[in-house]
């Protein structure tokens, strides 16, 4: 059977309309659904962040009850982590990994469909808890007991929803591993894979390793609440801190799950717009693997104030500081890739450069936080909030936006509006710094995180931060508009939409046809 008849046959039986999206096993359709879902969740989580920033605009309580405020901080984190960033990366993996390794689809297409469709249901459950008696979860996304056990009706629903999201992530990861290990085009050895594929392979293993740990921790919470166990209650011989150990054994690899694919994206975009090969490909791979390994032995740096023995604090301080070495290698490699290139500054490159600059600032504050005695002051303050938003917003989210701009021509067949893209970038990068940079000052000056009201010496910086928050939030609507316009039409994109773009995805036409690489390409 030739490729042509195969193609024709497929189109004849394929359902159209809503059913197409419901039953699709096509990696591109599923990838698009993941990406659009993630955008929707980004806006929902963003709206929650704006409730937080509006209440914090000035001291005193003006808008919301403190308990509702706590629900907002909790849900904002859960929605952004499990709804926006993780599905965005899975969407990019779905779209790009088969195209990058020359495979016709993901290895497990039906499971792929299920992985996606679990998400809307999981989030329907999670978000519905806001309307339940007693409100949604308000104990922070980390769900520390005993506080989490004070949640009302929402409690079992939250845990069930997180189980569902976890199952979705695990299946998505198994699919990525199976695809990368089995479906590469002839000649594409592991060390010839694009870095995005490498970073995702490592991320997928991290997810398979730690999502079950989270599932275990929250199941123990559930049995503590309903079945009389006392895993986390000292009164029955348990220990609340045990939960924190288990949670962060998941939680620290989780933060690398949220950033490693971003490293892959930046390592793809910078060489394309510098028109120069990536500097230190193999050291990039080894650095990624080292970061993944280290992520398993640093978890208790989130817990320096719980009262650990000296030896434990020293171990976790040293292992955490070590992460700076492979991360530094990555940053140096990116700068060396730019060095003596011939750079142009289209929107994807601007976001990638902002990533390198601002993620590194987040890395610096991370290094400061690693210093255990100094962390006795930093811990649980806005300094920490600033740190992880620098690595997650100007890190992970900027990388996702860079990826979207970079591959939009391949997905839609149209160039996006460069003018709108530039506006989106500059507004985002300015406001995001107005939003998060002052939070370093607030934290150092003594403002704890997760408080709905504060004493008056923190008023100025909070007001500035809130202005930045609203500016950044509304700037994202420009992206939604740009995306809408780009899907609807625009300048036709060539197969190789960017002058310096390398990789198999640019060998197929734009937009990428419904089925690609039915016969595998040969990689020299």
């Amino acid at each position, binding site marked *: 059977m030739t490729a042509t008849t195969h193609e024709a046959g497929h189109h004849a039986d394929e359902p159209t309309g809503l059913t197409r999206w419901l039953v699709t096993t096509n990696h591109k359709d599923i990838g698009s659904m993941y990406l659009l879902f993630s955008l929707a969740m980004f806006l929902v989580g963003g709206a929650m962040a704006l409730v937080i920033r509006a209440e914090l605009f000035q001291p005193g*309580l003006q808008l919301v*009850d*403190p308990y509702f405020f706590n629900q907002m901080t909790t849900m904002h984190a859960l929605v952004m982590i499990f709804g926006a960033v993780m599905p965005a990366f899975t969407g990019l993996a779905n779209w790009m990994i088969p195209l990058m390794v020359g495979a016709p689809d993901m290895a497990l297409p039906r499971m792929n469909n299920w992985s996606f469709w679990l998400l809307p249901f999981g989030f329907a459950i999670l978000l519905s808890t806001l309307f339940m008696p007693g409100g949604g979860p308000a104990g922070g996304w980390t769900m520390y007991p005993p*506080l989490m056990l004070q949640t009302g009706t929402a409690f079992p629903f939250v845990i069930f929803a997180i189980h569902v999201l976890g199952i979705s992530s695990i299946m998505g990861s198994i699919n990525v591993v199976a695809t990368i290990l089995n479906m590469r085009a002839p000649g594409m050895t592991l060390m010839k894979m694009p870095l995005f594929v490498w970073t995702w392979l490592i991320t997928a293993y991290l997810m398979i390793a730690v999502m079950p740990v989270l599932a275990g921790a929250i199941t123990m919470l559930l049995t503590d609440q309903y079945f009389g166990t006392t895993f986390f209650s000292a009164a029955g011989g348990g220990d609340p801190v045990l939960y924190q150990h288990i949670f962060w054994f998941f939680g620290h690899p989780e933060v690398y799950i949220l950033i490693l694919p971003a490293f892959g994206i930046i390592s793809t975009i910078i060489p394309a717009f510098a028109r120069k090969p990536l500097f230190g490909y193999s050291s990039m791979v080894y650095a990624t693997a080292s970061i993944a390994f280290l992520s398993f032995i640093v978890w208790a740096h989130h817990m320096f*104030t719980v009262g650990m023995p000296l030896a434990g604090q020293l171990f976790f301080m040293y292992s955490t500081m070590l992460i700076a070495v492979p991360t530094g290698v990555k940053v140096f490699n990116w700068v060396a890739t730019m060095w003596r290139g011939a750079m*142009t500054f289209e929107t994807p490159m601007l976001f990638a450069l902002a990533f390198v600059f601002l993620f590194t600032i987040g890395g610096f504050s991370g290094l400061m936080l690693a210093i255990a*005695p*100094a962390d006795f002051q930093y811990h649980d303050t806005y300094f920490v909030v600033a740190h992880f938003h620098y690595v997650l917003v100007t890190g992970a989210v900027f990388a996702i936006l860079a990826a979207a701009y970079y591959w939009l021509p391949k997905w839609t067949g149209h160039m996006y509006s460069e003018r709108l893209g530039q506006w989106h970038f500059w507004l985002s990068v300015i406001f995001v710094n107005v939003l998060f940079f002052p939070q370093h000052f607030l934290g150092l000056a003594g403002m704890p995180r997760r408080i709905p009201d504060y004493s008056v010496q923190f008023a100025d910086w909070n007001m500035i931060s809130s202005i930045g928050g609203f500016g950044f939030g509304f700037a994202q609507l420009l992206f939604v508009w740009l995306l809408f316009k780009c899907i609807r039409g625009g300048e036709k994109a060539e197969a190789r939409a960017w002058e310096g773009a390398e990789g198999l995805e640019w060998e197929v036409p734009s937009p990428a046809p419904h089925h690609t690489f039915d016969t595998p390409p040969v990689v020299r």
Partner: protein
Amino acid sequence: MKTMIVRTALAGLVTGLMLVAAPAAADLGLINMTRGVTESSERIYDLHMTIFMITVVIGVGVFGAMFYSIFRHRKARGVKPATFHHSTTVEIIWTVIPLAILVAMAVPATMVLVDFEDTSDTEMTVKVTGYQWFWGYEYMDENVQFLSRLDRDSDRARQLGSDIQPASVDNYLQNVDRRLILPVDTRVKFQITAADVIHSWWVPDLGWKRDAIPGFVNETWTEIKEPGVYRGRCAELCGRDHGFMPIVVEAVEKEAFQAWLAEQRGDDAAATTAGADDAEAGAELASR
């Protein structure tokens, strides 16, 4: 066209940064960690500044190279891209140098930590208990204990829609009804625990916070050098009123402290009654 956009945006960025910097100039004390009033807090502050300065120097180097490259190595200047893609020597150098810097950071950090974790030779002990949402203090072996809550003025002003301006309240959200009184120049041991959920006891001027965990007792210590009033707050999310359980420590001279303690202990009859009332109220609230 594109350079126009870039220029406008850069101008915007500069204006934005100036906007951010303006209040900073007004009060530098509000953008950095406090030096505090104990030996430990000063050492932690120095450590913080050392690490910060190291990251600034690294940042200047890395970002300097990056921006130099952005301005020089751009296609618009008609440059031809180089083709090099690795250099083992360079890669080894920029792995080893950061390692050396990290070791240099780890040495002072370890020294501060080892010293801080030594809770021996303390002269008195205060037990701190976190409740939803106030603190309980007990002077061990002195028969003095009381609860410490957000003061009434702040509590009235902080209600949703109270229409009381926070700025008009004395020390809004950082005032309590009863302060923790401590003597200066005395090594005080803290035994920190909680009755319901996890809290965290934090006074920045003492240099640390420590979690208050139900069912467990965390030990730590301080030695305040100067008399004064030092304000802090709960640092671990503990429910609805997490933001409304401040801490106020008042450090006084040793003699004044002894006199205060004697008064509390009931060397004066009126104080005894008041103390007993407080203890009862505490027990009742704790069982709630």
